[in-house]
């Protein structure tokens, strides 16, 4: 069966009287039929039959150094390609090590299929060696999961798993297969078996009335704003979003995961909203009279205080998951459905219009932010993270595939790299998983072998999964790792500065020499301490055949501005003081609306 062909349709190569196959062989047959070309994993006792059957298969296997990385790699592969990522792990500790990666994929709706080995069915529930109830453990962090104990069930279950992972609101699916089921064999022709999911209805359609009501609200609004989320990328809806904007002149604010869904360099792009969104974006949201939320879920990092969020605005919410409608923010029109299909139906109802006075107002708000931009600080000899990101954007001509970790550097990347294309930024949003970047980038590398790929990572998060440098070396892949090294768990330190009276409790890091660490793996290591050195370092990294780690020693006590304190009103922001004074030191709290 070709990948993407209808499940349940007869497979073209269907033969009667299939040859006897082991469960382990069937696993690989199904993966091949689903179009899987690379899997990420780590062998162990309970999954050895599957690893043994891997020989003479076309799928490439990447041996990770920790199973958490296998799940992140599958996730990074999925986000970079739009396909389903696959990881393998053994039972017990192998399976539990996947948990952080699965939860990350769950919170960001990333389609991955995790295949875990399980002890033999006769031992289930006996606390056997390396037994963990992994379906129980992952119940709340998977879209669905399975325990398979019979060889006949392996193929139908895996096919269901792929279908569930990629359809509707995508997500992780775990399939736990007992060792005896992997070893048993069957003549059962799995291709002839239909996939039965009687309760699963991934697709909804908004009614004509609801679409008409949305179009009315859009026509009547004077200060409308589009909030673009991850769903724009997931549904491949970026061209339709562009069409909507060009027809109406409505400006676009993006969530962190929505960046790239609308080109950052477009005149109507406002950039990121939320806790570390630009002040003028958050203020615009608060002043708007209509929010058109596309494939986003009003996360608390986006809305701030729900009681005061966009009080003057009517709200239209287009979202594939019905349980997200009215979950956090009460909306006037909720359109449940695939974003691409819904916009396709909505667009003909939208009248051509402009938003000139409203955009002029927003541009005036923007002027105030410009004077607070660290890029315009007088040169003081220090290297700021924002410099690094800005220069990376400039030197890569805005075209690199960027993968970030979680923390201050992530927010600076979101603010200073201008993402013009969907799937250009890969970052852990919902779960905020430190250690995500390096393994996710390795996964993305296999999905997009030809793109220039930069990992932007803090010194803290890097060390959580730095062992995967060894995987980079073994696989001979080329990624550029930019460590934004400030010697602190920077975002926690920032909160300590603002909200805990400068008590830097357990946030200072005594780091290894990252250059030597790279060299110890047989990779290239560079150090940058001054802004003038950035172009040469980038050129050197590009010239090397393999992975390069650049240790950017940045200003230690810099702060991500603006900041909406957790639970505060969206326009109650801590701003960088205008011009002149360098940040850091005492608490520069300048609260209040712009």
């Amino acid at each position: 069966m070709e990948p993407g062909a209808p499940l349940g349709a007869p497979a073209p190569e269907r033969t009667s009287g299939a040859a006897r196959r082991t469960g382990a062989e069937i696993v690989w047959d199904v993966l091949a039929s689903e179009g899987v070309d690379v899997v990420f994993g780590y062998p162990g006792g309970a999954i050895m039959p599957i690893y043994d059957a891997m020989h003479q298969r076309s799928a490439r296997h990447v041996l990770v150094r920790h199973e958490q990385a296998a799940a992140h790699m599958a996730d990074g592969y999925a986000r970079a390609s739009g396909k389903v990522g696959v990881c393998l792990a053994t039972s017990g500790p192998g399976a539990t090590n996947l948990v952080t990666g699965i939860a990350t994929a769950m919170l960001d709706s990333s389609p991955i299929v995790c295949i875990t080995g399980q002890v033999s069915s006769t031992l289930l529930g006996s606390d056997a060696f390396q037994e963990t109830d992994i379906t129980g453990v992952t119940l709340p962090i998977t879209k669905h999961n399975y325990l398979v104990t019979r060889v006949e069930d392996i193929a139908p279950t895996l096919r269901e798993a792929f279908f569930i992972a990629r359809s509707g609101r995508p997500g992780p699916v775990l399939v736990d297969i007992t060792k005896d089921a992997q070893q048993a064999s069957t003549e059962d022709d799995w291709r002839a078996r239909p996939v039965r999911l009687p309760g699963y209805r991934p697709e909804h359609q908004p009614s004509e009335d609801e679409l008409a009501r949305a179009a009315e609200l859009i026509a009547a609004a004077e200060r409308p704003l589009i909030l673009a989320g991850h769903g724009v990328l997931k549904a491949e809806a970026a061209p339709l979003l562009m069409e909507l904007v060009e027809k109406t002149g409505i400006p676009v604010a993006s969530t962190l995961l929505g960046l790239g869904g609308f080109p950052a360099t477009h005149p109507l792009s406002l950039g990121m909203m939320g806790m570390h969104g630009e002040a003028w974006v958050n203020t615009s949201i608060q002043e708007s009279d209509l929010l058109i939320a596309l494939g986003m879920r009003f996360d608390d990092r986006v809305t701030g205080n729900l009681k005061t969020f966009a009080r003057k605005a009517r709200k239209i919410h287009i979202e594939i998951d019905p349980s997200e409608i009215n979950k956090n923010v009460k909306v006037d029109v909720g359109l449940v459905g695939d974003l691409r299909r819904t916009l396709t139906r909505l667009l003909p109802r939208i009248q051509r219009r402009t938003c000139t006075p409203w955009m002029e107002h927003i541009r005036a708000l923007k002027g105030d932010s410009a004077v607070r931009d660290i890029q315009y600080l007088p040169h003081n000899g220090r290297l700021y993270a924002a410099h690094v990101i800005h220069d990376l954007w400039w030197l890569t001509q805005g075209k690199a595939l960027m993968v970030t970790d979680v923390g201050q550097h992530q927010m600076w990347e979101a603010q200073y790299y201008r993402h013009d294309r969907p799937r250009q930024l890969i970052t852990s949003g919902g779960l905020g998983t430190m250690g995500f970047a390096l393994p996710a980038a390795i996964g993305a590398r296999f999905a997009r072998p030809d793109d220039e790929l930069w990992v932007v990572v803090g010194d803290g998060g890097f060390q959580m999964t730095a062992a995967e440098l060894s995987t980079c070396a073994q696989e001979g892949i080329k990624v550029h790792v930019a460590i934004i090294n400030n010697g602190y768990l920077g975002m926690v330190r920032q909160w300590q500065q603002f909200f805990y009276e400068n008590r830097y409790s357990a946030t200072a890091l005594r780091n290894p020499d990252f250059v030597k660490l790279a060299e110890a793996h047989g990779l290239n290591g560079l150090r940058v301490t001054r802004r003038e050195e950035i172009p040469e370092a980038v050129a050197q990294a590009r010239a090397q055949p393999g992975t390069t780690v650049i240790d950017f020693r940045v200003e230690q006590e810099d702060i991500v501005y603006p900041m909406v304190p957790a639970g505060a009103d969206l326009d109650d922001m801590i701003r960088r003081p205008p011009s002149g004074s360098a940040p850091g030191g005492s608490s520069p709290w300048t609260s209040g609306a712009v």
Partner: protein
Amino acid sequence: MNPSRQHTFIAHVEDRPGVLNRVISLFRRRAYNIDSLTVARTERPAISRITLVVEADDREARLLEANLYKLINVLYVEQVTDQGTVARELALIKVRSDEKTRPNVLQVCEVFRARAIDVTPASVMVELTGTPDKIDGLIELLRPHGIIELVRTGAVAMARGAQSALTDLLDARTDPPEHTA
């Protein structure tokens, strides 16, 4: 906002291992205390029916219903709180009773249409089917005699009328049971 009140959900689910766990985990995760839960097979071979009563406001109840639908093994959910619904519960009550008090116990039971199903020299066991309110009422009247043991099933519920939401749904579906991408 909306006041909290008892909401009754009827979930029709695939009869498979672990499905009940998925359903109640959804309530556990959100820290709801489940007031009552009954589950058993139905007239259809592969479908079980869960009746679940929980305290929630109307917005929460709607979100719970939407989340129940997200479970792959859940076929259909009826939120019957505001519909014409018949809800019944079964209780077995073992109450202290000797020769002297037995007539009084049996008299009370008769008023409630409860049946004595076991009598010993010192006790009577009675069976009562009715609305949860009615069962509460009998328990209150028997309590002074001394309740030795008590078990109730929790409510089962069904919408009134000749229709069945699930039957209508399954009959109306023209697509084959297997999934097409």
